[in-house]
């Protein structure tokens, strides 16, 4: 039976660990903090595994349908007898799947960091932040109401900010941290307004009640669909605004600009936060409210689908031109999240139509495995050559055999080559797209081919291409400015073990019978597997790989000549289609000059001016009359006597007048 205390311990272990490290461990036993953090996550992971096992195979299923369970719930704030904010834990297939992913990837990253961050000055702080993040993310996925999810949403934002800015002595890291925080904050504003709209009309914040009220014909549903603003119903507004919040966290176009810069953080952090867990929070959010999107407001779901497919395609093109390996991975993350988004967007609710939903969650699951693996592998490479740039790498396959093999597995998985994990999930997404929207399907399949190309461009550039000369491997600033000398080994056992585990999982995760476990309505969804359907995507992906092989296997002139041939397009993609520049233009030139400066002028001259004037007048007056207060007794007496005499004269004058 599910024990409430055990479930509560899953998020509580990391937060206790964070408090322990922050309050005590940082000063008392800094060297031990890494092990402490790892142990607490191990505990969380074991508990999650137990809970997942019990949920999926023992108590979750009633009459063939997975139920939503609420093992813990208590009232937190009561505004009025009808409106209150509760805190609770909601277990359903997606949240159980998410706690499993989050604790597992977090555990891998913790173990990896034992080697990767060794000797770092703020080693203990790093583990404290990781624990804080894990707690926030677990809280986010377990939230039972929409306000609680918002609180944890902000908490993951804060921990992401702290970890991106971990090397705060580097200006670029500080700028990246601020950028990530501000951009997601703008998106969160939309999320908050969306929450308020939904909560106002449905009269509740609780997920279950809210979904029930907004999907069945009730007064609330009537009210929210009939109220309209600027030609869209309130429901549409609410859902789109909530999606904007999700798009900000999940780096969807045009709010994606923070994600590539966020790679300034330590590489394991990128693996955990900016690849596997936090950035899929947006997908999770849409999945959480999926019944409302799907049943009550399908046009909002279309927005999700088109933003998803556009981001996916856009990011894939940009990824082909980047030279910083972590940025390539960042754009590939954005592209894959776009995949998950449009899979949700094309999905229907329940039964056969819920294929897209299932596929999206499946892809989320497999993507977490191979993308974390890619980042950790990239981390190992960066650790080895002390550079992020592709041109500093090459021929590493002999020097780093384990990294090489696992990286290859991850690349094959993301490219969608059978029988690796990515193949199965991507296949189902494509199938879902094919069934509902042909245009999205064609763009998606094209994106899949581009994905295969840029991933193998990365792979060949790192592990084949030219041979790395010893001189190149030593010079260059280390990604972390590591103080310890250049070692000729691949890395410590703690760095290789997660690579091997994740590599194995990327190989076999595709065989998980996902349709039986995670579906939109909790019922089993039997997926049919069509060999004929898979031919086209696999062939296209193989073509992408062959192209990359041709271009990057050996150092040659072809990539350069192609880039020259596509001059305008290439440089536009290399500059990320000038999105950053557009943002800068809008903020610096338009917002700052047209709104910011007049507002600042008004504030400085009118608002402050009034106050300053009052102060100045008071001050001047005081200066001019302060001489009266001389402190001399006899001067005071003169004033007193002259006053008395003055009054006497006045009285005499009046008395004389009658």
């Amino acid at each position, binding site marked *: 039976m599910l024990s409430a205390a055990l479930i509560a311990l899953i998020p509580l272990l990391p937060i206790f660990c964070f408090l322990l490290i922050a309050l005590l461990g940082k000063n008392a036993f800094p060297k031990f903090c890494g092990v402490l953090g790892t142990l607490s996550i191990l505990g969380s992971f074991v508990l999650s595994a137990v809970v997942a096992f019990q949920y999926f195979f023992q108590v979750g299923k009633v009459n063939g349908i997975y139920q939503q369970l609420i093992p813990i719930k208590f009232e937190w704030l009561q505004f009025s007898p009808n409106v209150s904010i509760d805190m609770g834990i909601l277990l359903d297939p997606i949240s159980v799947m998410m706690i499993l992913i989050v604790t597992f990837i977090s555990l891998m990253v913790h173990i990896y960091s034992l080697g990767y961050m060794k000797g770092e000055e703020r080693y203990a702080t790093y583990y404290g932040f990781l624990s804080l993040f894990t707690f926030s993310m677990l809280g986010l996925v377990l939230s039972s109401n929409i306000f609680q999810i918002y609180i944890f949403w902000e908490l993951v934002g804060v921990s992401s900010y702290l970890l991106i800015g971990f090397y705060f002595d580097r200006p670029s890291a500080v700028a990246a941290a601020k950028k990530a925080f501000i951009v997601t904050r703008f998106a969160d504003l939309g999320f908050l307004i969306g929450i308020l709209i939904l909560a106002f009309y449905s009269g509740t914040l609780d997920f279950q009640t809210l979904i029930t009220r907004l999907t069945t014909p009730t007064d609330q549903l009537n009210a929210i669909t009939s109220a309209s603003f600027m030609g869209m119903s309130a429901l549409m507004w609410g859902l789109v605004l909530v999606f904007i919040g999700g798009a900000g966290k999940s780096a969807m176009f045009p709010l994606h600009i923070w994600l590539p810069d966020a790679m300034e953080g330590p590489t394991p952090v990128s693996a955990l936060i900016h690849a596997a867990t936090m950035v899929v929070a947006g997908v999770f959010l849409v999945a959480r409210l999926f019944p409302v999107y799907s049943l009550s407001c399908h046009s909002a779901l279309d927005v999700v689908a088109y933003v998803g497919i556009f981001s996916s395609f856009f990011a894939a093109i940009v990824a082909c031109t980047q030279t910083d390996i972590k940025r390539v991975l960042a754009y590939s993350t954005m592209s894959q999240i776009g995949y998950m988004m449009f899979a949700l967007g094309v999905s229907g609710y329940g039964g056969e139509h819920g294929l897209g939903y299932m596929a999206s969650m499946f892809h989320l699951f497999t993507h977490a495995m191979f993308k974390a693996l890619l980042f950790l592998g990239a981390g190992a490479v960066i650790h080895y050559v002390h550079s992020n740039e592709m041109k500093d790498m090459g021929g590493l396959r002999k020097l780093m055999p384990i990294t090489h093999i696992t990286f290859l597995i991850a690349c094959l998985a993301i490219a969608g080559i059978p029988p690796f994990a990515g193949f199965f999930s991507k296949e189902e997404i494509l199938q879902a797209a094919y069934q509902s929207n042909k245009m999205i399907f064609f763009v998606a399949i094209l994106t899949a081919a581009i994905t295969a190309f840029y991933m193998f461009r990365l792979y060949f550039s790192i592990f084949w291409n030219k041979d790395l000369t010893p001189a190149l491997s030593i010079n260059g600033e280390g990604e972390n400015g590591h103080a310890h000398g250049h070692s000729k080994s691949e890395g410590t056992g703690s760095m290789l073990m997660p690579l091997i585990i994740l590599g194995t999982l990327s190989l076999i995760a595709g065989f998980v019978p996902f349709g039986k476990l995670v579906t939109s309505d909790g019922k089993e969804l039997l997926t049919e597997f069509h060999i004929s359907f898979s031919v086209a995507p696999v062939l296209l992906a193989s073509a992408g790989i062959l192209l990359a092989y041709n271009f990057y296997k050996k150092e040659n002139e072809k990539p350069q000549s192609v880039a020259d041939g596509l001059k305008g397009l290439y440089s536009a993609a290399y500059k990320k289609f000038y999105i950053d520049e557009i943002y800068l233009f809008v903020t610096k030139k338009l917002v700052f000059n047209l709104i910011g400066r007049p507002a600042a002028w008004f504030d400085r001259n009118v608002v402050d001016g009034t106050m300053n004037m009052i102060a100045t007048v008071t001050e001047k007056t005081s200066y001019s009359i302060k001489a009266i207060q001389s*402190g*001399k*007794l*006899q001067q005071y*007496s*003169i004033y007193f*006597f002259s006053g008395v005499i003055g009054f006497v004269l006045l009285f005499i004058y009046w008395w004389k007048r009658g």
Partner: protein
Amino acid sequence: MGIGLTQILFVSTALFFIGVYGFLTRRNMITMLMAIELILNSININFIAFNKYLYADKLDGLFFTVFIITIAAAEAAVAIAIIINLYRSYKSIDIEDADTMKY
């Protein structure tokens, strides 16, 4: 023409303003104390004069005078005690020198 109320009031007024003048211009605290005594005595004269010329059958003015003399004696005692203490601290009885608490 004998001495009437008017003449006595002239004397007391003169005495009063001599006292005020002394109080305002002297820096020596003993002198200032003497000036205050002059003011008080001018008041006493006023009381006595009004009592004698206007309400000869009553004694209220006399009582007031007795009280004022008593108070003046007490006041002189307190004031001189203060002045002695100040002298011990400042080695001076100039009122301008006692300015420690001014700012």
